């Protein structure tokens, strides 16, 4: 059972629809105890880093302890940014801190008409072709972004994306995964990435797993 965390930051409906379409077994937990028993945890989110303040305290502790016990974690967009230590967007709010580094504002380059927010479809440049989220995809796959802040390219970066500056679009470290784009809004490529995460969690229903094997 996947725990989909609802902390009031946006895209829960669309992530829920995508998980339903994939046949995933998931719940939106009302209490933090569920995290320890979950087969995986997804932290969605869009918008301002300050919204993650709702996770400070009990949720942060529960997710941190589940992750150290080996439960796979996927952060989407703001949820990925939250995996880091903090963000310049809301310096007073603490991140989960399971990936070293800090989120900074994207640069723009108005001469090249590269605007911020970075909105639209852009390519994933794989830095590690064996990354578990990339099964069935090739470097250059197009996915949908909408954000003004992003993670730096560090050792955990398995795919980067070029805008005015190059940023980390997918991170992976042990059982921790983060995607800056919206897999639930990235058509077939996005659904494949979610499916790959569910496979890591062992949470695909037998029916879906069988359909995939064919």
């Amino acid at each position: 059972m996947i725990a989909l965390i609802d902390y009031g930051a946006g895209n829960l409906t669309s992530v829920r629809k995508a998980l339903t379409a994939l046949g995933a077994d998931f719940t939106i937990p009302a209490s933090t105890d569920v995290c320890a028993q979950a087969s995986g945890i997804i932290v969605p989110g869009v918008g301002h880093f300050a919204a993650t303040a709702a996770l400070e305290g009990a949720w942060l502790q529960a997710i941190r302890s589940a992750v150290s016990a080996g439960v796979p974690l996927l952060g989407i967009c703001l949820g990925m940014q939250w995996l880091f230590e903090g963000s310049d967007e809301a310096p007073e709010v603490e991140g989960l801190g399971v990936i070293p580094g800090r989120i900074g504002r994207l640069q723009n380059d108005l001469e090249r008409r590269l605007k911020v927010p970075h909105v639209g479809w852009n390519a994933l440049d794989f830095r590690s072709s064996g990354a578990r989220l990339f099964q069935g995809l090739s470097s250059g796959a197009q996915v949908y972004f909408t954000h003004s802040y992003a993670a730096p390219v560090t050792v955990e970066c398995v795919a980067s994306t070029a805008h005015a500056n190059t940023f980390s679009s997918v991170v992976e470290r042990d059982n921790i995964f983060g995607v800056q784009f919206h897999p639930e809004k990235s058509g077939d490529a996005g659904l494949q990435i979610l499916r790959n995460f569910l496979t890591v969690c062992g949470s695909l229903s037998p029916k879906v797993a069988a359909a995939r094997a064919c």
Partner: protein
Amino acid sequence: MLTKRIIACLDVRDGQVVKGVQFQQLRHAGDPGALARRYNVEGIDEVVVLDITATLESRQALARTINAVAQEIFLPLTVGGGIRSEEDAAAAIDAGADKVSLNTAALKSPELITTLARRYGSQAVIVAIDAKRLGDGFGVFVRSGTTDAARDAVEWARQAESRGAGEILLTSMDRDGTKAGFDCEMTAAVSDAVDIPVIASGGAGTFDHFTDVFTRGRADAALAASIFHYAESSVSDLKRYLRQHGIPVRL
């Protein structure tokens, strides 16, 4: 590299897609879920659902339409038309919209842009501007294009950005439904004035019109309805054409 987006617009009345010319003479264009499904297969980048009646009775019908479209596609979905309050926006987002598009309400109460940007992030707030040429400038019209707002489109776009809008959807009322081409001068004027993405709308008739609006018009995205609804042209043919002409698109 960020690609140029092609967006399909579904003007919805009573749960059905309709399309007019210069905001008049509506005719039926099909079922929203079925159209969204076709566009998704053809490679559309985003879908906009505009509720063109936006009466109280149509609210629940709209939620059903948003839900039906969101079941079919895993792509960004914007909902507009009659979003007047934070509650209207919340209802659209809860039904499955990723972004809301504000028009008349944003001009009347610009603080609504800021309120929604704080709650959902700027990326979820589009300000739609319906404009037409007036003398040397571009005048803004509201209430489905029936009322002169006595505002300049470029100035209003700048103000919308400073209030927290994440994108501008700029419709040329002169060109809407005419298939005579986008108003590239107007699009370029707004695109040069703001740092947020500008979606050009109104007038798409040929593939060259899209090339024009992405080059001369300096648009970040282009929105069309008629050209796609009646299967005159497929989204995939358009995108292949654009790529051949040096415009970066998702294929």
